[in-house]
């Protein structure tokens, strides 16, 4: 990296940088950092996700100034935010819809990685850190959803914490420990608030590691090949990527604002405007939309422990993906069969999501079960086998050199590599 040549232009900058090389760090990672010149718009979601995290932290801190974490007061304090606090409605709607936008972005970001093989060597650690971030996001969003203490908050918390009661032998003690009582109640709310405040900062720490790990091998790119060492395949992060990311961010913010100002409650559930009542369960409890696929997997198993194991398995299986995928070729552009399975997986996750929102009976349950089986088969059967069975397309030598001469080029690319 060319950061070695960097010298701050101002005298005060040089004085500071010699004592703490922060400017050198920023220059290396946010200005000069070489990026593949063929990155498309699917690569802008990393920046969008950073924006989402910062938005949640800022609006969250403001909400916490007015919110009261107590079972008797939480619901009315959220109503107080909505009605009395200056711009409270705006802050809360940004925070509540911001969680949804955050998940929208993270799902696109994850599927991008799946399509272009960004989880493969040498980027396994980036991928695993990403999955950990995703898991923490789910924990943060789940606990956040409990805070307004409406009916969905209460019963969502009850159902999710009861998942742990499926653990053999210690299940009951574990759930009582989580609750701080014999059911979801005030002690549960206060600890959830404390953790909801904490987790985003843990995520922030993981994001730093995620980007650090990214900047070791550099970005993957749409054709998934390693870059030439001479720098002819790259452009500097600033201004090329910065401007492209900002443009995508503005489009994203328009969609975000569309929800906040015109449909702030469509992604939520109206039952959460009813205060929590421990004696009455709502007729159809559903989690937030971004958790529905996993909820469908949970319900597709007629056994309590089995359902819980499969649901957590569906998330943790992603960690093993770099080793389950046996194909050497990264990008799905050169993998004609994998590409079809990729879209099948996308469809499958949508189907699971839909089934998770429907009552668990009859045809819904049946389709949910089939979709669950496919989900696991995709990772445990299709991915390992395809590496051996699939005939991939020829791969270009470099980004600057598009495929022109068929498989001869692929052979040349290989020879070229072994020569290096």
């Amino acid at each position, binding site marked *: 990296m060319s950061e070695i040549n960097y010298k701050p232009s101002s005298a005060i900058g040089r004085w500071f940088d010699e004592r703490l090389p922060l400017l050198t760090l920023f220059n290396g990672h946010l200005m000069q950092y070489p990026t593949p010149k063929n990155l498309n718009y699917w690569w802008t979601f990393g920046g969008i996700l950073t924006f989402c995290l910062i938005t949640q932290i800022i609006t969250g801190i403001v909400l916490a100034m007015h919110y009261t974490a107590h079972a008797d007061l939480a619901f009315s304090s959220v109503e107080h935010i909505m009605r009395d606090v200056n711009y409270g409605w705006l802050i809360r709607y940004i925070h509540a819809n911001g969680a949804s936008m955050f998940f929208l972005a993270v799902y696109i970001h994850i599927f991008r990685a799946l399509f272009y093989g960004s989880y493969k060597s040498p980027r396994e650690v980036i991928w695993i850190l990403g999955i950990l971030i995703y898991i923490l996001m789910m924990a943060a969003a789940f606990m956040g959803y409990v805070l307004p203490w409406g009916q969905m908050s209460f*019963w969502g918390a*009850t*159902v999710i*914490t*009861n*998942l742990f*009661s499926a653990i053999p032998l210690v299940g009951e003690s574990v759930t*009582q*420990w*989580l*609750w*701080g*009582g*014999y*059911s*979801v*109640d005030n*002690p549960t709310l206060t*600890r959830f608030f404390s953790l909801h405040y904490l987790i985003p900062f843990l995520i922030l720490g993981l994001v730093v590691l995620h980007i650090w790990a990214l900047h070791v091998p550099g970005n993957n790119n749409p054709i998934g090949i390693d870059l030439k060492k001479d720098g002819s395949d790259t452009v500097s992060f600033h201004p090329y990527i910065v401007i492209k990311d900002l443009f995508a961010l503005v489009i994203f913010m328009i969609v975000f604002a569309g929800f906040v100002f015109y449909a702030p409650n469509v992604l939520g559930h109206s039952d959460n405007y009813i205060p929590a009542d*421990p*004696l*009455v*369960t709502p*007729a*159809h*409890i559903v989690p937030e939309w971004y958790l529905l696929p996993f909820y469908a997997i949970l*319900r597709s*198993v*007629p*056994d*309590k*422990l089995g*359902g819980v194991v499969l649901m957590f398995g569906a998330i943790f299986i992603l960690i093993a993906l770099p080793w389950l995928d046996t194909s050497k070729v990264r990008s799905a552009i050169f993998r004609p069969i994998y590409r079809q399975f990729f879209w099948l997986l996308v469809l499958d996750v949508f189907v699971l999501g839909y089934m998770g929102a429907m*009552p*668990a*009976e009859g045809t819904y349950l049946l389709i949910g079960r089939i979709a669950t089986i496919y989900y696991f088969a995709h990772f445990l059967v299709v991915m390992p086998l395809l590496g051996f069975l699939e005939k991939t397309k020829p791969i270009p030598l470099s980004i600057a050199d598009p495929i022109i001469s068929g498989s001869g080029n692929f052979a040349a690319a290989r020879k070229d590599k072994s020569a290096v």
Partner: protein
Amino acid sequence: MNKKSDYKDKPTRREFIHIATTTVGVVGVGCVALPLVTQMNPDASVKALAKVEVDVSRISKGNEVTVMWRGKPIFIRRRTDQEINKARNVSLKDLKDPQKDEDRVKKGKDEWLIMVGVCTHLGCVPLKQQGEFGGWFCPCHGSHYDISGRIRKGPAPVNMEIPNYEFVSDSKLIIG
């Protein structure tokens, strides 16, 4: 000191210090972790609310009331003779969690079914007089319970729980 070969198998002083320091460190961390972990368990004020008293004299046959105990609903159902017969005519072989109805009530108080009204699947409150077995039905993921509160169909693994309770007189019930 001794010849080299002599203490080859014995730990050196440095190894000893390493092991001793690590041990003390681990024990120390454990001692600090214990209060940090157990503070999350139910505290004294939560445990203090462990009993409730109910006047059951006004519940007529075939009716049911719900009271709160430890943050959970308790179903108190005064069953009709017909319901009791129905519960007792079920063969244990048909049950997922076999238990006689007689073992779920107090002897001589067979009409009173007192149980924690919480689905043993994931904790929703089942609806009374619904489902395929004339007992309770949990709408969350479709568990059916019979009139003895035993699980008959659906994902719940066991029967609804019977709390500790005592009739101190004909009309006074103490739960907990």
